[in-house]
C-alpha cells in the first residue's frame, strides 16, 4: 500500500506524459492527420514517404555532421580547459568562475545575443572586421551556405563547453595526487603525465561528457530554430527541426511522427552503444591504478 502511494503519482505523471507519448508517436506514424480534422489510417504510407524523402535524408546527414563536429570541437576544448582550471594557480579559479557565465543564459538569450553580434551590417563582429583590417570577419555568417552550419557548431560549443569544462575539472580533481608524485619520481614530461595518468583516469568523465554531447547535439533544436530555421536552403535543417516543421508548419502530424520515431530510435541506440562500448568498466576504473 505504501509502495502504491509513493509510486502512483509519479507513474501517473510519467506514464501519461512520457510513456504514453512514446506509444502514441508510433501509432500516429501510421495515420494521416492535419491536427484538426479526422485521423485517417494509411498503413505504411508515411514510412514509405520517409524512405523516398530527400529532405529527410539530407537532414539526417546534417544531423550527423553536427553531432560529429560538436564532439570533435567540444571534447578536446573542454578537456584542455578543464585541466587548465583544475590547476593550482589562484587566477585560474577566477577564470573558472567567468567560464561558467554562458550557463546562466537561456538558449533563446544566447541565440539573440549572437544574432546581433553576427549581423553582417551592424554586428560587433562585422565592425571588427571592417575597422581592424580583418575583412574575412565581415561576412554573413548565418546566411552563407558554406558558413551557416559551422557557425551553428561554434555557437553550440560556446553554450556547452562551459558545462563540459566543469565535468573535466571535477574529473581531474578526483585523480589522487599519489599518482602524479610517483610519476614525478620517474621524471616524465607533463605531456607523458597527461597521456599516461590523466587521460586513463578521466575515462569515466570522457564517457559521461561524450554521451551528453552526442545525445544533446543529436536532438539539438533551439538555436537553429531561432537563428536559421534550417536555412539558408536546407543547410542547417537538422532532423529535430525537420520533424517540428513537418508537424507544426506543414501540419502533417502523421509524417512528423515517423521522423519522431526515427529520432527517438537513433537517440536510444546511440545512448546504448556508447554506454556499452565505453561504460562497462567505467565504474571500477575510477580508482584503478591506485594500488
Amino acid at each position, binding site marked *: 500500500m505504501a509502495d502504491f502511494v509513493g509510486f502512483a503519482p509519479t507513474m501517473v505523471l510519467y506514464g501519461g506524459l512520457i510513456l504514453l507519448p512514446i506509444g502514441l508517436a508510433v501509432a500516429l506514424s501510421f495515420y494521416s492527420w492535419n491536427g484538426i480534422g479526422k485521423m485517417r489510417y494509411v498503413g505504411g504510407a508515411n514510412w514509405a514517404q520517409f524512405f523516398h524523402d530527400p529532405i529527410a535524408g539530407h537532414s539526417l546527414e546534417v544531423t550527423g555532421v553536427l553531432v560529429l563536429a560538436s564532439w570533435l570541437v567540444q571534447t578536446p576544448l573542454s578537456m584542455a580547459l578543464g585541466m587548465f*582550471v583544475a590547476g593550482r594557480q589562484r587566477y585560474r579559479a577566477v577564470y573558472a568562475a567567468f567560464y561558467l557565465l554562458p550557463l546562466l543564459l537561456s538558449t533563446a538569450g544566447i541565440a539573440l545575443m549572437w544574432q546581433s553580434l553576427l549581423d553582417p551590417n551592424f554586428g560587433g563582429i562585422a565592425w571588427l572586421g571592417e575597422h581592424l583590417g580583418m575583412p574575412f570577419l565581415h561576412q554573413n555568417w548565418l546566411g552563407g551556405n558554406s558558413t551557416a552550419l559551422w557557425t551553428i557548431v561554434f555557437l553550440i560549443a560556446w553554450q556547452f563547453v562551459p558545462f563540459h569544462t566543469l565535468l573535466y575539472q571535477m574529473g581531474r580533481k578526483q585523480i589522487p595526487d599519489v599518482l602524479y608524485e610517483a610519476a614525478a*619520481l620517474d621524471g616524465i614530461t*607533463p605531456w607523458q603525465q597527461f597521456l599516461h595518468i590523466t587521460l586513463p583516469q578521466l575515462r569515466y568523465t570522457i564517457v559521461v561528457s561524450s554521451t551528453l554531447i552526442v545525445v544533446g547535439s*543529436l536532438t539539438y533544436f533551439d538555436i537553429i530554430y531561432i537563428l536559421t530555421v534550417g536555412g539558408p536552403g536546407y543547410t542547417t535543417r537538422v532532423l529535430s527541426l525537420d520533424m517540428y516543421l513537418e508537424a507544426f508548419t506543414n501540419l502533417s502530424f502523421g509524417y512528423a511522427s515517423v521522423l519522431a520515431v526515427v529520432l527517438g530510435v537513433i537517440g536510444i541506440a546511440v545512448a546504448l552503444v556508447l554506454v556499452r562500448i565505453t561504460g562497462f568498466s567505467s565504474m571500477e576504473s575510477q580508482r584503478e591504478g591506485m594500488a
Partner: protein
Amino acid sequence: MSVSAPGLRLRACAPARPGLAARMRRAGHHLRARPGRAVAFVLGTVWLVVVLAPIYFMVLSSLRNEGTYITANPWVPTGGLTFSEYSTVFHAGLGTYFVNSVIVTGSSVVLTLTLSLAMSFRVIRRTSRFAGWSLRLVIFGLAIPIQALIVPLYVIILKLGIYDTLLALILTLSASAIPVAVLIMLSFIRDIPRELIDAMAVDGAGEWRIFGRLIVPLSRPVLATLGIYTGLNVWNNFLIPLVLTQSNGTAVLPLGLYKFQGEYGIDVPAIMAAVLLSVIPLVVLYVAMRRQFVRGLSGVGLR
C-alpha cells in the same frame, strides 16, 4: 574515445628505476620553469575573451537606443548610454513572462523533487513487485529524447484541455525531469545507513514518520543540488513552451524573448535589455550560492 593500455599506467606508478637522483633533479626542474604554464595562460585567456566579449557586447548594446546603436562604436562605451530600453521592454510585457517563468519553474521544481524523493524512498523500502517495475520504466526514460515526443505531447495536452496553460508546462517539464531526478536521488538515498531507518521502525514509527523525520531532513543537500539543476533546465527550456503555449499571457521568458525579436525586429538594444533582464535572477543565485550552484549545474555528472 581513447582509452590507453593498462600497462602504460602501471609503468607510470612503478618504483623509480636506477638513476633516481638524476631523475628527481629533472622532475624538480619541471616544477620550477614550465613553458607550458605560459602557453596555458595565453590559451586560457583567449577563451576568457571568447566567453566575455559577446556578453560585454550585449551589455553595452543594451545601454544604447535604436539610433546610437547604429552610429556608435559597438565595443567602446562612448557616445551616450541610457537605461531607457530596459523600461521599454519591462512595460512591453516582460514582467508577465517573468512571473510565468517563476510560477512554472517553482512549481516544476517542487513537483519533481517531491515525486522523485517519495519514489526513491519507496524503492529502498519496497515491499511489492510494482515498485521494481516502476523503477525500471522510469530509468528507461533516461534514454528517451524529449524532442521526439513533442507531437504526441501536443495531442495529449490538447485532449486534456490544458493547451496554452502554465499547468501544461509544469506537468510536462516535471514528467521529463523525473528520470534524472530519480536516478540522482536514489543514488543519494541508498547511502543513508539502513540501521537508522530500521531503528526508527523498531521504535514504532510508520512509513510517513520515517519519511518526514528522517529521509527528508537527511536529503537536504541533494534536494538543493537537484533543485538547482531542475530549476535551471525548466527556466531555460524553449521547445516545450513553444509547442504547448501560444498566447502572450502564457509565454515564459525564453519564448517571450523570441517573441520580442519578432515584434521589435531591428531594435537590438531592446532585445539585449530583455535578455539581460531575464538572466538577473540566475546571476543573483550564482553569486549568492556559487558552490551549490556549481554542484547543481554538474548534477548529472556527479554520482
